[in-house]
């Protein structure tokens, strides 16, 4: 990894931090486009696994950026076979990209909160908040869709069914998310998907 690429990656994530109007899930399409399609720093499978595993782990979704950083760093330094040095670089990238993704928006929040409290009923603020909602919805749906295609490269209909069923279960029932993931894991393993 060249230092130019390293810098560009971190600057890009700083920008994404300020564009993350819908939180971590809404920037998934952009991360896919940038890391997988544009820069070829991750494969579809690695991308899918990063997001998937971040969903089983507790903690805010934004931690998936750390997982992406870990994968990118690890791979560019030779993978797990390369041992400690590659893993250290993976950790370094994980921390760096997470910081890039979190600090700009956090700084903005820290400094804007008082202004926002005073102006939260202002027409412009209300328009911004409401106006962004259709956008956030579209971005989240596309995040889910991209995750589906990345996890289902051969467009196996059975995986599509699992996806649809999980979506319905989340919308219509109170089944805990971990059960859904476990169900998906078991079905996937048993059916050899």
């Amino acid at each position, binding site marked *: 990894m060249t230092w130019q690429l390293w810098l560009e990656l971190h600057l890009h994530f700083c920008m994404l931090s300020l*564009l*993350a*109007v819908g939180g971590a*899930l809404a920037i998934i*399409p952009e991360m896919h*486009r940038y890391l997988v*399609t544009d820069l070829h720093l991750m494969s579809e499978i690695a991308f899918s*696994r990063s997001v998937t595993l971040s*969903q*089983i782990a*507790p*903690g*805010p*979704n*934004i*931690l998936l950026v*750390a*997982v992406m950083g*870990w994968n990118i760093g690890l791979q560019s330094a030779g993978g797990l076979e390369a041992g400690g040095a590659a893993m250290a670089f993976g950790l370094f990238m*994980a921390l760096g990209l*997470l910081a890039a993704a979190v600090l700009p*928006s*956090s700084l903005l*929040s*820290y400094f804007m*909160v008082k202004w926002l*409290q005073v102006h*939260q009923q202002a*027409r412009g*603020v*209300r*328009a911004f908040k409401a*106006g962004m*909602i*259709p*956008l956030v919805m*579209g*971005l*989240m*749906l*596309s*995040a*889910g869709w991209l*995750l589906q295609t*990345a996890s*289902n490269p051969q467009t196996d209909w059975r*995986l599509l069914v699992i*996806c649809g069923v*999980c*979506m*319905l279960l989340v919308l219509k029932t109170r089944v*805990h998310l971990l059960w*859904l993931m476990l*169900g*998906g*894991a*078991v079905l*996937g*393993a048993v059916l050899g*998907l």
Partner: protein
Amino acid sequence: MSFERLAVSKAPRSRTDLFLSFTWLGLQGFGGVLAVVQREIVDRKQWMSLAEFAEEWALAQTLPGPNVVNLSVMFGGKHFGPSGAFAALSGLLFFPGLLMLAIVFTFQAFAHLPWVASALHGMGVAAAGMVMAAGWRFMPTLRQHPIGFPLALGFAALSFALAAWAHWPLAHVIALVGSLSCGLTWWRLAPKDAP
């Protein structure tokens, strides 16, 4: 003065308290962070009343960035200034982050096994369904939107098409759809002229 203001709400005792509390909070959130945060901060620790929490969460939603991250920074900052904000934020991210990387590492060590890879495919599409459900949840809000349901749905569909199919950069999607949607909303929020 409302009764909420009269009641004395407790406050975090120190930066360490902030860090540890937000660590505990971070270790619980499986996607449904809002419920966890509310339960911890309002019900258990009583650091905020429900009304105060609702207001802070609304502010956190308005600003870019993950809601719970923004909330931690705003809340920590209110009580202990910059170091408080940092304590809350790092609590939320540090140990949960380490745990997450440990989980990832474990999976990667076994990912060469075919059944593990299959399980990951299944989990991947399950997670995809969950994320789509999270997006779909906005539907009722669209129905009540100031610009009307058809237009709001149209903008959502356009965002989806641009991000999922046309692979537009996020900055461009926000510039186009964001400005149209917010602009239209701003126009529709115009105060009615007094007779």
